[in-house]
C-alpha cells in the first residue's frame, strides 16, 4: 500500500497541490499528472505545498523533475512552499532548485504570483 496521497485546489489563476506522506514510489506519479492537468486547463501558476511531505527519494525527484520540465515547456511558474531543510537539500544536491521558486509558505508564494502576469 502506498503511503502517499494528494489533494489539490485552485484559487483564481493559481493551482495548489498538497502531496502527503512519502514521495518514494511510482504512485506519486499522480502528482505529475495533476500538474499536467492544471497546465492543460491553462493554469500557469502552480504551487506545491510540502508541509505534509515526510520523505523524498530519487523516485520522488523524478516526479518533480517531470513537473519542472512541463512547467518550463509551458512558460509557467512552479513554486515550492513549506519545505523542510532536508527537502530543500535533496533538490539542491540534484541541481534542481534553480528551476523552481521557493517560498516560506503559501502566503508568500501567492504574493509573488499575484504580481505576475
Amino acid at each position, binding site marked *: 500500500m502506498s503511503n502517499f496521497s494528494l489533494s489539490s485546489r485552485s484559487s483564481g489563476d493559481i493551482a495548489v497541490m498538497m502531496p502527503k506522506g512519502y514521495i518514494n514510489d*511510482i504512485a506519486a506519479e499522480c502528482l505529475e499528472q495533476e500538474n499536467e492537468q492544471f497546465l492543460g486547463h491553462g493554469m500557469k501558476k502552480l504551487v506545491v505545498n510540502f508541509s505534509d511531505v515526510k520523505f523524498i*527519494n*530519487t*523516485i*520522488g525527484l523524478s516526479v518533480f*523533475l*517531470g513537473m*519542472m520540465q512541463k512547467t518550463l515547456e509551458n512558460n509557467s511558474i512552479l513554486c515550492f512552499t513549506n519545505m523542510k531543510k532536508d527537502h530543500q537539500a535533496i533538490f539542491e*544536491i540534484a541541481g534542481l532548485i534553480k528551476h523552481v521558486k521557493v517560498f516560506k509558505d503559501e502566503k508568500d508564494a501567492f504574493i509573488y504570483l499575484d504580481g505576475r502576469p
Partner: protein
Amino acid sequence: MEDPDMKDKKLHLKRLMFSIASLVDLGQEATSSKDLMSKMKAALFVITGTLSVPTAALFVYQPKRHELDLVVAKGHRDIDAEAIRLGATAIQVKQFRMNDPHTFRDLSANSFFEQNKTVLTNLQARIFLPLFAKGTFVGAITLGKKIGGAPYRQGEKDVLRVIAHQMAITLHNAHLFLELSKKATENRRLYRNMQRIYNDTIQAFAAAIDAKDGYTKDHSYRVASYSVAIAKELGWKKKDIEGIYVAGLLHDIGKIIIDTGLIRKGEKLTAGEINEIRKHPEISYDILSKVKFPWKDIDNFVRHHHERMDGKGYPDALMSRELSEGVKILSLADAFDAMTTDRPYRHKLGLDRTFQEFIECCGTQFDEKITGTFFNLLLRELSGEVMELQILPLLNNGDEGYLADGGTVART
C-alpha cells in the same frame, strides 16, 4: 568566508552521498515484491531522478527478432510505446560496450545508430545504455537531455554503469523466472493431460470388465461411486478417495481372463466352477500389482474385496483386524451393488431386503462401522437431508459419478 576548495569538496561529497542514496533506492526497487514492469518503471524513475533527465525509455531485447521493444518510458506521454522498436543485429550488439553509457558519437561507427536514427531522435535520446547480464544482452536504456541542457558529468556516467549492471541482472533474473514459470505451466498442462488419459484408460478397463456380462454393466462404476461416498463420509483425504475410486473401477479386472460362459451362467455353479470364479481377486491383484499407481494399496484393496470380517472370505481368509478400511469399504460396496442389481441367477433385492441382509451379516461379513456409515448416508439421502445425492441416483440408474480429478462429470 568558506574556502572555495572546501566548498567544492563538500559539494563532491554531497553528490557522492546522493549517488549512493540513489543506488540504495534502486536496490530496494529491484528486490521489492512488485511485478517486473513496476520494478522497471521505478528503476527508470530512480535514474531520471538521480541524473535530472526528464525523458528516458527502457527497452527489452527480443533475441529471436533481434529487436529491442520499448517497455517503459518516462516523460514521453504522447508516444505509442507498443509501436516503438529498435533493430539490433548480433553484430551490432557485439560492438556495444557492456553496461557502459554510449553517446551518439560513440555509436557513430555502429550501423545500429544509422538504422535507428529516427526512433532515437523522436525519443530525444542523448545516451544509449546497453544492458548486459552475464555477457548476455538483455535490453537498453535511452536517456534524453538533462534539464537545463547541462552535459552528463563523468561521475554520473559512473553511476549509470552501476545502475545498468543492477537493472540488467534484474531483467535477466525476471526473464529466467518467466521461462521457468512457462515451463512449470506447460508441465502442469502435460500432467493434467496425462491424468485425463490415465483416467480414461481406467474407465475403459472398467467398461471392458463389465462388458463380460450384460448383467454387470456399470457394476464397477457403481462400486467405485459407492466406495467414494463412504470414504468421503469417513473423512478420507482427496488423494485416498481417488485411490478407492480407481480400486472400485478395477476390482474385478481379474474376471477378464475367466471364462465368459462361467460368469454368465444362470444355473447353480459346481464346486470347480466356484473355485474358478473365486480366482478373480488374485488375478486382479497379479495384474494391478505390476502397475505403479499414484495411489496406495490399490492392489491390496482388490485382492481382498471378497474377504469377510469373520475370516471366512477368500482368497486369504483374513480376519477383520487384518483388513484395511479400504478393503472393508470395497467389500461392502461390491456386495451392495450385487444385491441391488439383477443377476443371471436372481432378481435384484429391494432396499428393505438389502438392508435386512446387511443387518444380518454385519460383523460377520461386513464391518459394522462401514455398514453404519453407508446406511446412515443412504437414509439421509432418502429423507432429503443431504443435497448432493451420491447413492440414490445410482440405484435409480442415474448417470453421474466421481472422477479422479475430484469433479462430477457425465459418464461416457
